[in-house]
């Protein structure tokens, strides 16, 4: 069955399903008419280097065929829909085995001015070591991004997506499989788009694979940002950490739902997730559901936590005694809160670059 038929054969998801509890499919669909698969424009993708140098050999971005999708999980609705729409916008990012690079690669995704879509297939070889930043920007009122693919054995990858859209709706779905002993950091920096529904899934399919999923989310005005993260431990000695920081101001709402699943046989799995929410205004709301499903008893540990709270009065007081005014102190504390995950997303250069991008957003929040 092709993706379009698969999508059309599925019924509208129920709100009792945690995945759809806060952002119903009808609200995220481009037209709201869920039986439609509209034809959308293709986003424009390009590669560049953060230090301005030429793209080195070993990495390439080409138009691809889109390939087949695994539609066995409960993200099948989103994935089949995005896949069906991205017929003319399939991209293949190939990184050869053994590729090593210090300067981060930037993958620019320009959404354009009309509703658009893109499907990026990642084919990352073995024993590579590099950093990739996917920067999404543009003025389109609806953008859909599907990222699928594999990260080869032994590869060390810092993979960061930064959403800088001016407005509109952003539907994102990642389905990434991680190979033996690969070490991945998957960062999300989100402050653009008025409405985001994001479903990020990582499968640790082979022994020794590890992932850190990190989020630095800033919501303001009437934004509605809904992120769901799933990590599946399917092999022994796999490791994962999920650390998600959301700062919510204005009338915005941020939602963080996580699912750590440890399959039977994944002995020695070590999994943890934590959601931190900083509430900045009276009418902001933060919701979290950190879920665990553990089917193996011989685990190192599986834990999760959530903490919600306002800006700490004592920290504010401390900064004020050091000469900060109310506004500066608040801004510094928000920046520090978001920086605690941001700083883990990559190396120094990448971090500096991300801080620069985020500072602009913070300025906008306080202006």
């Amino acid at each position: 069955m092709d993706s379009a038929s698969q999508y059309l054969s599925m019924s509208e998801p129920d709100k009792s399903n945690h995945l759809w509890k806060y952002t119903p499919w009808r609200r995220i669909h481009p037209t709201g008419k869920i039986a439609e698969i509209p034809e959308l424009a293709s986003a424009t993708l390009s590669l560049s280097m953060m230090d301005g140098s030429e793209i080195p050999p070993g990495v390439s971005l080409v138009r691809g065929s889109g390939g087949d999708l695994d539609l066995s999980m409960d993200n099948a609705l989103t994935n089949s829909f995005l896949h069906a729409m991205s017929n003319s916008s399939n991209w293949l990012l190939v990184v050869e085995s053994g590729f090593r690079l210090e300067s981060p690669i930037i993958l620019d995704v320009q959404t354009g001015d009309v509703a658009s879509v893109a499907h990026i297939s990642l084919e990352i070889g073995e024993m590579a070591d590099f950093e990739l930043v996917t920067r999404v920007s543009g003025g389109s009122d609806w953008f859909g991004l599907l990222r699928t693919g594999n990260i080869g054995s032994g590869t060390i990858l810092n993979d960061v997506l930064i959403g800088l859209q001016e407005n509109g709706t952003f539907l994102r779905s990642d389905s990434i499989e991680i190979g033996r002993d690969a070490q991945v950091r998957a960062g999300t920096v989100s402050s653009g788009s008025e409405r985001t529904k994001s479903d990020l899934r990582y499968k640790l399919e082979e022994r020794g694979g590890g992932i850190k999923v990190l989020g630095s989310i800033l919501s303001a005005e009437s934004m509605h940002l809904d992120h769901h993260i799933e990590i599946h431990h399917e092999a022994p000695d796999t490791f994962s950490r999920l650390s998600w920081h959301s700062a919510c101001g204005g009338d915005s709402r941020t939602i963080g739902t996580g699912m750590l699943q440890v399959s039977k046989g994944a002995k020695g799995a070590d999994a943890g997730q934590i959601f931190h929410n900083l509430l900045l205004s009276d009418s902001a709301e933060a919701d979290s559901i950190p879920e665990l499903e553990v089917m193996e008893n011989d685990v190192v540990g599986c834990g999760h936590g959530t903490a919600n709270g306002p800006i700490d009065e004592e920290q504010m007081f401390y900064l004020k005694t050091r000469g900060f005014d109310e506004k500066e102190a608040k801004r510094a504390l928000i920046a520090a809160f978001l920086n605690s995950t941001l700083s883990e997303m990559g190396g120094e250069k990448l971090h500096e670059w991300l801080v620069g991008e985020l500072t602009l957003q913070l300025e906008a929040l306080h202006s």
Partner: protein
Amino acid sequence: MAEGGVIRVSGDSEAREAVGEYKAGWHDPENSTIRFDFGLSEEVVRQISELKEEPEWMTDIRVKAFKHFSERPMPTWGNMSMLEEIDFENICYYLKSSDSTERDWEDVPEDIRNTFERLGIPEAEQKWLSGVTAQYESEAVYHSIREDLEKQGVIFLDMDSGLKEYPEIVKKWFCSVVPYSDNKFSALNTAVWSGGSFIYVPEGVHVEMPVQAYFRINAKNMGQFERTLIIADKGSSIHYVEGCTAPSYSTDSLHSAVVELVALPGSHIRYSTIQNWSSNVYNLVTKRGIAHEDAKIEWVDGNIGSKLTMKYPAVILKGEGSHAEVISVAYSGEGQHQDAGAKIHHLASNTTSKILSKSISKNGGRGTYRGMVTVSPKADNCKLNVVCDALILDEGSRSDTYPTMEVANPSARCEHEASVSKVSDDQLFYLMSRGHSEEESLAMIVNGFFEPFTRELPMEYAVELNQLMALEMEGSIG
């Protein structure tokens, strides 16, 4: 053999042999005075109401609830495959085994009295309880309350007598905390409820010793739908304890209770449950309390038996300064799924809550924590803390955690933490190096794991729960 749903280790050997692992699983011959046919219809609902000579408003609520139950689909979450196995047409919705509710054990029919004696209820009453109600199938068969409490105006009745004697109080509060339309099983309970407890504690009265209700299902394919309403007036306090057992049959029974607690300003209600149904009982229960200004509601909830339990004791913190606590433990053995948790809604300012959940899965059992905590936009300075810990003792067992936290007020301080682990080799090694066998060591670690729960129980319960868990742990090693 058991007391308050908790089993004594030394007991009736004949009964133990008959039922194997589950120690309260014997059954007595069924001597019913009234037994309805299997299946549910509006006619059955009206007949139950007529039989009980209820006022018209209650009949109307029952009929409305029945219609809601019929139209409402089964839940689309939780263990749907187990839920779908419930055959509502193969359940007896009303069965009465005694003509009346007695105040003296000697007047209770002999076979039923023997059952409760084997469960240790009369002995417990003499020793450490303020009052007892014993429910057998659909109706309460025994009921008593200490005279001094009665003189202070404490009302402790079975729910049917409560409705007869205090219709105005019941009418005011019935369905006020759990509306029949809350969920499919609250609708079912409202349609066919029978038995349960009705308690009213007057202003300023403190009931020092706990009152206890004991629920026993004896017949096959039985549905028990008790309804409990507890109202604690201003500044009063009460501790209510309930226990439940049933015989082991190869066919399933259904227990679907609704419990409503109303804690008026400054009052304190503690509701303790030791659920030890046999492994053929579906235990689908709605429990909720409303706490007014400075009131406190505590649910202390132990789930050891049943095939599938779905139970999420809830507190609505409606009044400023109110407090809620839910402490629960769950043990899931072979073929069992304990889907338990807690719900707390902070609607008022300066409210606090605490949830502590502990679960153990063994022999392929599945333990699930499912919880929800919300803070409404108008509730300033709320504090809440959720901790859930799970132990998986062997291969093939499973533990899930599904906590939801919705916070719409920036001044709220919310913390949630959970962990799933196995029994630490270091702890086992330490205890074994001090001369304990591996089995004893494991039992000690498990009792230690449950200790935050057992210390909240009356002493007699705590001792027996520890012994019960030691029994459940037998054969865990090797």
